[in-house]
């Protein structure tokens, strides 16, 4: 069991006082970010990323930096549950399903039970996903060492086609938004020929568009504008969480072990696919509703209805890091920001990372175990404090968040122009949300644009411009075929529905 040995090595890296302090700080910051309107995992990590530049430049500092940032992510995942349950405001898209039973439970006077169930099942989901990462990631990485440019491009293609296939809205809006991301990524100096692309004479565009600015604007400013549109008040249940409630709920939870297992599996499987966390939470809620004996009572405040989506969402959010580490393909916008962080610190995510930087990889994996334990303790003990943040009047919290976004945008490159760009992206984010254009594909395309283009060019060079390069052997052919299947999935499933349409109305499961 080489993994166990590597993991023990990782714990030795992660278990320093400095790193434990960073974990605690990261979790607390993360929960605050998850609770605050307009700040979520993705833009929270994006804003704090520049603060790690000096930390990461010290020897061994990249591990500390990734521990800080990933713990912010875990914290934000936990924090999303707090707002969903107490305020009926899902902090992140994958917390939407948590509101279905979490908020009614809180209204019924059992907010403590709902919160305990949410946090505990989040923890369980994350734990299963981390176990998966521990044992699967080295295998995937080893396998991916054989990948050449065509295979990598096929993996990118699979990532982006999965977005189209799994999107709930219009697939053409997903495509438009994704391709806009690729186009924005192409702006600036071309890395191969050195030519200026798409700058149209604007010197400011020489460096191109930075995805961190896009994330801060799209998710931060856009989200705040939407919140403001709804009015300035938050109404929520009081949060009380004493030890007795926690223990009582824990006694109740083992009854739902089957739901937990099912949701963990759904979460892990969907999390590896990009954009999987949100469908995973809905799917696991739907499955639990269908299969549980209490199914008809779902939606009125059932503990099981909180367990299912939270387990799946957290499992998916965590396993999204598996393709990020092993292939360099992030599964969620936040994983994309973490990937961007690695690139800025001078690390190349992908299969070679496991060979060249084992300390970093295993330190990070070990920190996932520790971070989630720390996180569970922090959220269980400090819920009232975090809920109090949402009671700070909006007229105070909103300008402070807006100032934080501006500072965050400036610090990425110390560039004034970026602050303006963030503002533009903010308006864009607001319009995208209103018109149902998804933002995650744009961000992912912006992050991966250059790598995808390089893989494409190299593959084309290898085959002298023959597109058949992507079907030249069994491996690349399978990935490309899978990608195309996902791309046309909306059409295929519609076709299946028509075929089955007359036989019965059970076609929804397809």
């Amino acid at each position, binding site marked *: 069991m080489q993994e166990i040995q590597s993991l023990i090595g990782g714990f030795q890296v992660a278990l320093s006082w400095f790193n434990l302090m960073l974990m605690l700080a990261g979790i607390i910051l993360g929960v605050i970010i998850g609770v605050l309107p307009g700040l979520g995992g993705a833009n929270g990590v994006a804003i704090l990323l520049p603060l790690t530049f000096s930390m990461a430049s010290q020897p061994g500092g990249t591990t500390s930096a990734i521990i800080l940032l990933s713990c912010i992510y875990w914290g934000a995942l936990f924090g999303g549950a707090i707002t969903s349950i107490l305020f009926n405001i899902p902090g992140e898209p994958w917390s939407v399903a948590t509101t279905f039973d979490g908020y009614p439970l809180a209204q019924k006077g059992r907010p403590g039970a709902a919160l305990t169930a949410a946090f505990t099942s989040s923890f369980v989901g994350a734990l299963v996903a981390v176990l998966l990462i521990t044992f699967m990631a080295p295998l995937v990485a080893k396998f991916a060492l054989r990948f050449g440019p065509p295979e990598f491009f096929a993996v990118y293609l699979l990532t982006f086609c999965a977005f189209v296939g799994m999107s709930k809205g219009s697939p*053409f809006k997903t495509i438009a938004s994704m391709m806009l991301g690729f186009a924005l990524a192409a702006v600036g100096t071309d890395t191969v020929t050195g030519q200026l692309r798409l700058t149209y004479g604007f010197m400011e565009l020489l460096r191109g568009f930075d995805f961190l600015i896009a994330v801060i604007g799209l998710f931060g400013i856009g989200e705040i504008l939407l919140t*403001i549109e709804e009015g300035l008040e938050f109404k929520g249940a009081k949060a009380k969480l004493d030890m007795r409630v926690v223990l009582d709920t824990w006694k109740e939870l083992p009854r739902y072990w089957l739901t937990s297992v099912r949701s963990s599996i759904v979460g892990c499987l969907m999390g590896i696919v990009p954009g999987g966390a949100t469908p995973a939470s809905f799917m696991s809620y739907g499955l639990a509703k269908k299969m549980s004996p209490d199914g008809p009572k779902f939606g009125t405040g059932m503990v099981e209805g909180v367990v299912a989506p939270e387990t799946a969402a957290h499992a998916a959010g965590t396993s999204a890091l598996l393709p990020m580490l092993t292939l360099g393909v992030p599964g969620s916008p936040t994983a994309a920001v973490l990937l961007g962080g690695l690139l800025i610190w001078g690390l190349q995510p992908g299969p070679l990372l496991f060979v060249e930087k084992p300390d970093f990889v295993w330190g990070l994996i070990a920190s996932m175990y520790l971070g989630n334990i720390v996180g569970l303790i922090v959220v269980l003990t400090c819920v009232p404090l975090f809920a109090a943040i949402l009671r700070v009047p909006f007229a105070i919290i909103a*300008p402070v968040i807006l100032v934080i976004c501006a500072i965050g945008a400036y610090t990425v490159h*110390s560039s004034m122009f970026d602050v303006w760009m963030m*503002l533009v992206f903010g308006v864009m984010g607001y319009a995208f949300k209103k018109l149902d254009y998804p933002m995650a594909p744009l961000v992912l395309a912006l992050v991966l644009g250059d790598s995808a283009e390089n893989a494409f060019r190299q593959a084309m060079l290898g085959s002298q411009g023959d597109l058949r390069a992507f079907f030249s052997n069994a491996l690349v052919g399978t990935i490309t075929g899978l990608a195309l299947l996902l791309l046309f999935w909306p059409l295929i499933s519609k076709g299946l529905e028509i075929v089955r349409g007359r036989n019965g109305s059970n076609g929804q499961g397809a």
Partner: protein
Amino acid sequence: MDEARQEKAVGSLRLWEIVAALLFLAAGALVVYDSRRLGSTWGSDGPEAGYFPFYIGVIICIASVINLISALKPGAAGDKPFVTWEQLKMVLIVMVPYAVYVALIANPLYSLGIYEASVIFIAVFMRYLGKYTWLKIGAVSVGTVAAFFVMFEIWFKVPLPKGPIEALLGFQ
């Protein structure tokens, strides 16, 4: 939605769907045009600089034309209001001061610095949306910004644009 709210809507969802699709189409056209200029074919030593972006631009154009067509299709969903005047007013109340704030920091003539601009921005926001007393406003705005100053300039050593007050205090 009741009719009173419909009347106050700023354009229907359909109208703005069309605008968005046209903007996407324009963006796609810009990408295609510049890629053609750079060369989007197979050069002597491999794919030219515009090879990849060209196809990206083409796909944007195709997708936005389809989005445009589906926006033009008549249907009840398109008649929903995009944003009501009330909502837009709230958004503008936040966006306009924020744009002024960004302009105070980032303009080619004279930068007030992020710290001074932030104090003013938080103060204005609290005064007009929260109706707080000047004492509270002063405490919150100056306190928050001072905390940021310590965090960025001293703790993490990430310099932000500074204005006249920091210069007086001897920070550069």
